[in-house]
């Protein structure tokens, strides 16, 4: 961090810094200074000048402290400096556990994690300030006699990390993890497939063939690029707008269709409404409707992975609205305290059904909340597949090697309605939706980049889309025809072992069906 201050004419001053955030603090102070100086106008100028320089000197010393403290505590170095975090080697030591077999890194890591924050001071603190510290539970804290309230938000919002511009060109000097042709093409194919899948299932619901559907239109980059950045051992706890992660991991279009139709081939055995996919094999937890419950669960999964010393982390998704739930606080706070390897990905898509984010919170989005929990955070352009890929990949590495949670806020827009039970034109402008659908489309943006590299052609495009469409229509047709679950599945899986009362009820139902088959529709077999 470097700061040079050039005093220009009288009251105004500009400061340059390699770290954008402190400029703001500097500017704020100067506005205050200049407005107060204006008040002193009537007084003679030499006094004014003396006062001015005295104030400057004191202010400068203070602000360096403020700046370095902020840099310290807000972990800004991770955001603004080119990726200078170094993965900590995980040290295994014998812990207090004498009776158990496994060695725990926890005790050493607990000390190490707090040590990470002690970045080398680039700005020296003055000796007087070192002495002015108070001891409280929680450590030493410097004090000031100036009563200053930290503003509710910085007037300049936390900037958004992006790599590709809207035309699909890489912004010069971008930080990003390079993506090979194979990976990029696969990512694009999956994003396009997700689009086709959403479109066709949505239409199927409108035709009355499935009861419900929820699209991810506009959020394809978040879905696919985040999945591409994870390892298959990473455990995913989704909200419900992340089927792309499952698609990436290998869930077939037929498997998606079977769940939506609740037929015999559905892995969920027809127990849940459509889009509540899940797959043990693909490490994707079955979707559960209550909002944000997956956040503390993810902390628990992360804790479990930590205890078993697996090279994997928990990854969990939440929308902007879900961050208002109490579970958001519990999940993030706990993951931080337990030092669990969890990557929290918030899809800030602007809308929680009809609630706009301006009615959801008063903070600068969700990224600023991470630091409140001591969690390293980043805001990323969620419609930029390369940026999402790099951010998630880096976050995942941090989470696993440093055994700590990371928060990613992916900015995007929910182009579709909340679900098939919603008509969003009732609460937002149709041209707002069109704008995001056309001009800020994440799939088109990534497509331009892939095409510019010569990795994709129009012919590939039409072939992919028509194949996907055909496969989906066939999958739907097949899923629709497939018989439903046998009625025994009504009584299974309530417990690990079926209890006596359910066995009796099942027998009772079977006997009833045999006695009076005419009262039940065909296909109702036990």
């Amino acid at each position, binding site marked *: 961090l470097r700061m040079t201050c050039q005093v220009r004419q009288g009251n105004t001053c500009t400061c340059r810094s390699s770290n954008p955030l402190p400029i703001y603090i500097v500017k704020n102070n100067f506005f205050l200074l200049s407005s107060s100086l204006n008040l002193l106008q009537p007084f003679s100028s030499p006094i004014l000048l003396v006062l001015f320089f005295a104030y400057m000197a004191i202010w400068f010393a203070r602000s360096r402290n403020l700046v370095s403290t902020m840099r310290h505590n807000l972990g800004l170095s991770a955001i603004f400096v080119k990726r200078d975090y170094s993965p900590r080697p995980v040290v295994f030591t014998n812990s207090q556990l004498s009776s158990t077999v496994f060695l725990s890194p926890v005790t050493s890591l607990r000390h190490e994690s707090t040590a990470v924050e002690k970045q080398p001071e680039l700005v020296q603190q003055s000796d007087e300030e070192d002495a002015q510290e108070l001891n409280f539970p929680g450590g030493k804290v410097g004090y000031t006699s100036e009563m200053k309230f930290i503003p509710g938000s910085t007037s300049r919002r936390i900037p958004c990390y992006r790599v590709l511009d809207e035309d699909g060109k890489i912004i010069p000097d971008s930080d990003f993890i390079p993506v090979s042709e194979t990976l990029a093409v696969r990512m694009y194919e999956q994003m396009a497939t997700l689009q086709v899948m959403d479109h066709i299932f949505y239409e199927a619901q409108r035709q009355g063939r499935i009861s419900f559907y929820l699209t991810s239109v506009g959020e394809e980059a978040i879905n696919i690029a985040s999945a591409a950045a994870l390892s298959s051992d990473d455990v995913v706890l989704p909200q419900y707008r992340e089927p792309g992660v499952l698609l990436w991991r290998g869930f077939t279009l037929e498997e998606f269709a079977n769940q939506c139709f609740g037929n015999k081939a559905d892995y*969920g055995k027809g127990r849940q409404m459509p889009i509540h996919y899940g797959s043990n094999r693909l490490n994707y937890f079955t979707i559960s*409707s209550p909002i944000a419950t997956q956040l503390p669960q993810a902390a*628990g999964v992360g804790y479990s992975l930590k205890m078993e010393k697996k090279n994997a982390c*928990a990854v969990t998704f939440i929308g902007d609205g879900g961050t208002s739930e109490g579970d958001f606080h519990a999940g993030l706070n706990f993951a931080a305290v337990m030092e669990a390897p969890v990557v929290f990905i918030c899809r800030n898509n602007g809308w929680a059904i009809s609630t706009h984010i301006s009615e959801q919170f008063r903070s600068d989005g969700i990224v600023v909340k991470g630091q409140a929990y001591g969690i390293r955070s980043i805001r990323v352009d969620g419609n930029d597949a390369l940026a999402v890929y790099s951010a998630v990949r880096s976050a995942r590495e941090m989470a696993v090697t440093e055994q700590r949670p990371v928060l990613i806020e992916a900015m995007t827009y929910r182009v579709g309605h909340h679900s098939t039970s919603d008509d969003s034109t009732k609460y937002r402008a149709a041209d707002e939706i069109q704008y995001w659908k056309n001009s800020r489309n994440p799939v088109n943006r990534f497509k331009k980049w892939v095409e510019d590299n010569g990795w994709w052609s129009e012919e590939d495009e039409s072939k992919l889309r028509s194949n996907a469409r055909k496969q989906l229509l066939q999958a739907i047709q097949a899923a629709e025809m497939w018989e439903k679950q046998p009625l025994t599945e009504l009584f299974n899986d*309530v417990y690990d072992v079926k209890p006596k009362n359910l066995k009796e009820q099942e027998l009772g139902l079977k006997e009833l069906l045999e006695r009076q088959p005419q009262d039940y529709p065909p296909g109702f077999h036990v």
Partner: protein
Amino acid sequence: MTVRDALNSAIDEEMSADPKVFVMGEEVGQYQGAYKITKGLLEKYGPERVYDTPITEAGFTGIGVGAAYAGLKPVVEFMTFNFSMQAIDHIINSAAKSNYMSAGQINVPIVFRGPNGAAAGVGAQHSQCYAAWYASVPGLKVLAPYSAEDARGLLKAAIRDPDPVVFLENELLYGESFPISEEALDSSFCLPIGKAKIEREGKDVTITTFSKMVGFALKAAEKLAEEGISAEVINLRSIRPLDRATINASVRKTSRLVTVEEGFPQHGVCAEICASVVEESFSYLDAPVERIAGADVPMPYAANLERLALPQ
């Protein structure tokens, strides 16, 4: 052995036998447990397996469920089950229903334990009995021990069970001492879930109850014996699954039933037992079933009022 020591030894033995078992809750570690049930465990197993949580029942219940999803076996302590209401969404929607909703892909081998029901002079928000609430949910198992042997056997069974178990203890029983057999002290000792115990055999009337009221019922049976009435006392042990077979067999023998619980009367455990007996043993009953339950009021604080709000 006191119930407290019984619970402590059960958790200790299960943690020693299976490294996936861990304890989580407020004050369970350094404070040795709000009621000292987890005493000594932190020293023995370390802070990763005896985890002191921040104050958020919703949070640590969710985390426990997540850990169970991923294969660990958490034993989550609620300081009292009254506080479990702040976490009840996770208990019901994340734990109880998960195995069913995921078609067997997600199982939740978790135990929720803590004191339940009335203590002494703790008022309305610390005295409710949750047996009926949890026992109405398919997917959960609900246990309520009485003696030290019950406490040991049932808690060990609960920790080993692959389904989510709600384990309802009683604060006033923690300090009570019970004789305990050699068999019960063995580390492999386990009681079957879903079996009631006939604490005292009789032939004139059946008294069914659970937890602290078992002691009351036994004392009542003594008093009845002086009057020449032989009462059979059944300690339910397991509220869900309810041992309907034992209850009905007993009622068919005695033809009269008195059900006792500390909780609120409407939709209580006793109501379910009545329904079961009426459905299955109607013709054996010589008299209507008598239900004895707590008063239909939030628990008052004043000692004289509290005494009258509970079965005496």
